[in-house]
């Protein structure tokens, strides 16, 4: 399969007054053509930060301290502002978490959609025609171009955001928790829309805290914990044969309508990333580490590495070290 985007050794730190937050540490992965990859993790795991890094839009005081984002053979992090702008919204587009805040409240929806097209070279009239067409594609009446964002519901605004993202048949769509602020039925319809986009040839980088949402339509799942990519693989590999203790624990903590098993929480709390634990960042909460004495001195000392244990299935855990 052709690779669309290849991220290598990405590290992002936030330089806050209270100290340096190591939000993303040494993350590598790639997304293939027409592939839907979901990044799963709790708040603060760094999944959204990775998403922003692809478009080189990490919010201040965050800085990409290391790594490459290779797209079409070019490292996006080395492009100048104008080259990057040409890619944003055209070849790679993004949908944000909160539809209430991701549209400019002072401008009409139609103006905002048309602007994307105009900024990338379309004529004004043609842009407005296309804007109407895009609204129809996301199942909104075309008269909505004259509405202001506050006149639309959350679900409708998210449709508008997706309409903008669809403007140029992008190669990659980055969706940062696009349904978190929405109810389940609306969530389902937004997921359908994203799936439509995928069927037209767009790869999807989907960020969510809800692993069951990732389970449904993804091809691959990447699990992040405390700034590290801990497991990455095909949906079946991750859900039916999870390897990393965190992935296992996460799956056991999620209630499911169609399952009778009991849920159990992961003990402890996520670490403070200004001062992450040495070695594997999960070891203070890891039940296996607690039981197996022989792991002491390894998990709490040595950095983990992402290892391919079977085809396409990667895990960063000392239990699977090559011996």
């Amino acid at each position, binding site marked *: 399969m052709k690779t669309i985007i290849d991220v290598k050794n990405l590290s992002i730190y936030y330089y806050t007054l209270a100290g340096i937050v190591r939000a993303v540490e040494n993350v590598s992965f790639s997304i293939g053509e027409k592939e839907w990859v979901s990044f799963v993790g709790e708040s603060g795991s760094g999944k959204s930060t990775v998403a922003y890094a692809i478009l080189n839009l990490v919010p201040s005081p965050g800085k990409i301290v290391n790594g490459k984002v290779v797209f079409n053979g070019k490292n996006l992090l080395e492009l100048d502002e104008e080259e990057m702008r040409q890619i944003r919204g055209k070849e790679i587009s993004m949908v944000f978490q909160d539809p209430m805040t991701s549209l400019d409240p002072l401008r009409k929806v139609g103006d905002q959609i048309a602007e994307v097209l105009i900024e990338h070279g379309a004529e004004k009239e043609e842009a407005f025609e296309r804007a109407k067409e895009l609204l129809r594609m996301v199942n909104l009446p075309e008269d909505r171009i004259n509405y202001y964002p506050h006149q639309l519901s959350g679900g409708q605004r998210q449709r508008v955001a997706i309409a903008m993202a669809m403007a140029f048949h992008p190669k990659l769509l980055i969706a940062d928790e696009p349904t978190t602020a929405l109810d389940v039925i609306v969530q389902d319809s937004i997921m359908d829309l994203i799936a439509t986009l995928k069927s037209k040839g767009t790869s999807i980088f989907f960020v969510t805290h809800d*692993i*069951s949402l990732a389970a*449904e339509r993804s091809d691959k799942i990447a699990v992040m914990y405390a700034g590290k990519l801990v497991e990455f693989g095909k949906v079946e590999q991750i859900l039916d044969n999870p390897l990393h203790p965190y992935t296992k624990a996460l799956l056991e903590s*999620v209630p*499911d*309508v169609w399952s009778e098993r009991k849920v159990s*929480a992961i003990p402890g709390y996520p670490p403070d990333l200004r001062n992450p634990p040495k070695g594997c960042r999960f070891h203070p909460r890891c039940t296996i580490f607690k039981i197996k004495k022989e792991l002491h001195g390894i998990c709490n000392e040595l950095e983990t590495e992402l290892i391919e244990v079977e085809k396409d299935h990667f895990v960063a855990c000392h239990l699977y070290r090559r011996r």
Partner: protein
Amino acid sequence: MSELLRVEHLKKYFPVKRSILEVLTKKEEKFVRAVDDISFSIERGETLALIGESGCGKTTTGRVILRLIEPTEGKIIFDGIDITKLGKEQLREIRKRMQMVFQDPYASLSPRMKIGDAIAHPLLIHGLADKEEAKELALQMLKRVGLTPEDEFYNRYPHHLSGGQRQRVVIARAMILKPDFVVADEAVSMIDVSMRASILELLESFREEYNLTMLFITHDIAVAKLIADRIAVMYLGKIVEIGPTDEVLNNPAHPYTLALIQAVPSIVKREKKKMIEITGEVPNAVNPPSGCRFHPRCPFADELCKTKEPELIEIGKNHFVACHHPVKD
């Protein structure tokens, strides 16, 4: 088992804010019918989950039952007493027995009150303990909810705590009065996934210890399944279906319930087949549709649904649905 709480024909209408122009031109005052004539009861020791999408009136229902906001109409009978008729002081008395756990643990604790004092305060308000005793009991409670070392946690302020820890404080504050009845409003929806289960476990343990009766309000059906004995589904201010948890989830009778359950993502059932296709969005609660409120979005709707409002009818043991054409499997 005996009944602890019964709600009869409860209504809560909020007036819609009018602009000055509208007030001066005497434009008719409109109301958001947040809760529109609902009735149900909860047995002692039972947990009823109230589920629905945002804006369906579930949170309003919880607040009205505790009279944190005044009902527009209807009765709320708690242990034989209609609390809608109580005066301020009598209401304060009964609040010892009815407590609430809120959704947002970041907002439900005063930022400038030590968490220990926040937990002890209910005891002091009701004169159940003096300062020393209250502190002692609060320390025990901190330990009980797993915030140890408790004397260290006692003196912390909320902003030092994570969301999960704060929610434990909120639960501790509600439980220190040993209530009979608790309304838990989206008690875990703002907590990180990995810690949700532990908060649910904590609630469960109190429920066993105090033989708590619970109204568990949630939008998350998977959570409702875990904790509830019965489920009530709300849509636009109405209860459309109510029944034992397994019954409602496995044999949903209302098309809306079916749509809701089908939309919930699942790890176990990854492949989806759509049983029902519904369209549009939840209409405005100011002018709800005539007849069955779900009819504009319902694939099975006919003339009857547009004109006649369906009533809750029993279709299985303890399983009620308000639909002219219930779904059969």
